[in-house]
């Protein structure tokens, strides 16, 4: 195939070209609109030099989450928060005078589909940025795509670390940010010196527990009396509950995910373990999960996150109210949902600082940006593309909310490749 043919085809069908034409056609109509409807931004040629889908009035942003399949329940909140943030940004005049246009794709809980759709968003739609992914597996699948086509991904989930890419900003916590402060707290306040680890069997719990074990053994001088893993979706936890009863750990430390959570906490309660007496610290239960588990089954457990819906500050009050207004009174907001909400804002700030949508310039402008309007308080982007954020410990209440019992005094530095924990 002659390369020329390809270029010609691509040129004719390029969405950018089409949009430009449509933009031109709409130009006379624009003059009829009230003048103040558009904040006049800098010329398109100045803010976009790499062929991204940026017009005089619009910039395209992709959203890539699972709308169908097993992960849909978890990813819905993230996707809703991103849409809320984008709607708010548009209402306030957009980015560099351009409204954000959303192109949404469904990853369908299937990692190769994520890769296919990521490629579509970057190659076909020329998205200036993509908000998306939830599981580590989906991120691992799209990572080579973003690196190859020099895209920009804002990834919202707390995750295992051990990764740092020029093309990704991680708006959730990496493992040390989430775990260490929580373990310190449980050691100091609850006298936790013996631990039992229970996790789902994949990379995030394995890596988190590895870090937790090193911290317990080397720093807290405690002991890990058991460490058990179960396949994703596992629902029979009686054997491990018996082991917990035998070994009598001071703290049960869990990173069981998804539907397994429901079975685990129900069986724990049924076996007579009273969470008001037995300390349980989890790093995988947010308000979203409690929705499924049932508040009564998990009341008394401690969860270690950077955000809880019950945080008392003005940013959060407004965020919670806006979120419920857009998506319904019954929705709950978990840690990842809030982290997803940060993505569009961090992108906006970086674009405005860079004065451009070009990925390289946005990436270069991002380090040390501070976002003071974050519901979790304020956050800062580290040069390693992760966020500085606080760690909080919440106690689950029967109504499905958390009572915050501890907040780290300072922002904690992200450390995706922790020395001494590998």
């Amino acid at each position, binding site marked *: *195939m002659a390369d020329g*043919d*390809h270029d010609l*085809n*691509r040129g004719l*069908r390029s969405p950018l070209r089409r949009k430009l034409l449509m933009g031109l056609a709409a130009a006379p109509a624009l003059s009829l609109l009230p003048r103040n409807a558009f904040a006049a931004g800098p010329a398109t040629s100045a803010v976009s030099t790499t062929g991204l889908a940026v017009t005089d009035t619009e910039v395209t942003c992709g959203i890539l989450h699972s*709308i*169908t399949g097993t992960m849909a329940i978890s990813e819905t909140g993230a996707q809703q928060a991103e849409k809320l943030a984008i709607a708010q940004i548009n209402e306030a005049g957009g980015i560099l005078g351009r409204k954000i246009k959303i192109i*949404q*794709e*469904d990853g*369908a809980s*299937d*990692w*190769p*589909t994520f*890769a*296919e*759709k990521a*490629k*579509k968003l970057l*190659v*076909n739609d020329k998205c200036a940025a993509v908000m998306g992914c939830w599981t*580590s*597996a989906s991120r*691992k*699948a799209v*990572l*080579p795509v973003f690196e*190859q086509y020099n895209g920009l991904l804002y990834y919202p989930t707390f995750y*295992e670390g*051990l990764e740092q890419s020029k093309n990704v900003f991680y708006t959730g916590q990496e493992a040390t940010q989430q775990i260490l402060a929580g373990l310190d707290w449980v050691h100091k306040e609850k006298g936790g010196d013996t631990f039992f680890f229970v996790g789902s*069997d*994949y*990379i995030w719990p*394995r*890596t988190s527990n*590895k870090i937790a074990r090193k911290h317990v053994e080397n720093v807290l001088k405690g002991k890990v009396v058991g460490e058990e893993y179960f*396949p*994703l979706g596992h629902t029979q936890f009686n054997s491990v509950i018996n082991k917990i009863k035998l070994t009598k750990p001071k703290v049960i430390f869990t990173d069981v995910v998804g539907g397994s959570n429901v079975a685990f906490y129900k069986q724990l309660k049924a076996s007579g373990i009273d969470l008001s007496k037995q300390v349980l610290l989890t790093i995988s239960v947010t308000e979203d999960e409690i929705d499924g588990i049932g508040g009564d089954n998990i009341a008394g457990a401690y969860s270690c996150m950077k955000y809880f819906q019950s945080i008392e500050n003005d940013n959060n009050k407004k965020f919670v109210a806006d979120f419920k207004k857009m998506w319904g009174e019954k929705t709950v907001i978990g840690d990842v949902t809030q982290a997803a909400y940060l993505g569009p804002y961090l992108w906006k700030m970086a674009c405005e600082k860079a004065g451009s949508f070009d990925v390289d310039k946005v990436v270069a402008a991002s380090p040390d940006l501070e976002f003071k309007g974050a519901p979790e308080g304020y956050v800062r982007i580290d040069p390693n593309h992760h966020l500085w954020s606080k760690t909080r410990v919440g106690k689950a209440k029967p109504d499905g909310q958390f009572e915050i019992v501890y907040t780290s005094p300072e922002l904690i530095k992200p450390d995706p*490749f922790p020395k001494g924990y*590998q």
Partner: protein
Amino acid sequence: MKNPVQTLTKSVTVNDNPFMKPIEWLSLALLALVLLVVLPSLLDAFRLNLVGKYLTYAFVALGLVICWGYAGILSLGQGCFFGLGGYCMAMYLKLEASSVANTKIQSTPGIPDFMDWNQITELPWFWKPFQSLPLTLILVVAVPVLFAFAISAAMFKRRVGGTYFAIITQAIAAILTILIVGQQGYTGGINGITDLRTLHGWDIRTDSAHTILYFVNGGLLLGCILIAQFVKKSKLGRILVAMRDKEDRVRFSGYSVAGFKVFAFCLAAAFAAIGGAMFTLQVGFMSPSFVGIVPSIEMVIYAAVGGRMSLFGAVWGTLLVNWAKTSFSESFPDLWLFGLGALFIAVVLAFPNGLAGIWREHIEPRLTRRVKGLRAPPPAIVPHGAPAE
């Protein structure tokens, strides 16, 4: 492309049972034309790569036509062989991508990153053969075929067949998935084997590499169609059909039924494995989500939509279903699964013999009438007693 048709037109008069009927040559030429000329010139690199990915499933569908359509063995575990082929290729590519220079930040440089995360400090023995490309290319087909042989020999020698066999293959697909997910230090777990970069130093992530791989894929697929056609036309193929329709009669005639069944199953596995390896090369990773029950059943659906008695139908069916999947999901991210479901229901209700049935009933007779001097095709073979419609 007209030549073979003409030469064969002449030979029809002398040969009662040609390798391919003129109409089949025409189908092959049409398929080759679309795959190797029309699509590459119409589609941009991204869409062409997508079609390449769809075509890797067509290998599996092709195997199912022989195994299910002709031999009557319904396998709901073809994902196993697709996955094993893909994993073999992915292991080679991963080792190449994990050179000491690329993995400096790890505790143990030179091993794949997921092994390092799982505190493995030495390359496991079964990864070692995949350091060599020639050995990998052999193992890509050999591992799945040996696995298929072991399963099918054990089952068919004991005369386990029909629905029981289908259920067992499904169970094996589930077991293999659990094994891969559980042994993440050795297999990459649920993430699969990701971030594959080069094949013997050749960067497989570029657009030009994707285009070349597309043509290799298309060529291999046409080759597999010819092999399948050969099997179908030979005495072997007739025994397979006979076995499907009246197994006991074939057995009493002195044939070893089990042997033929094992052969058909292994051939389907070999096709699936080639598809899996090409998938890994074109998509750039392999994960357990291709090994399990859902993809295995989807692959049966491709064959069913295409028409399970038709080699070409299998390819068209795979293309149609996957194209529908992609375009529905791009246009209606919230509703696409319903659209896809509606497509299946429509096909099954209106065209029980799939795309091939439409072709055979409506297009082929007209074409045949047009082409002078051709005999009318014999009536379509209607399968009896085939399991699990």
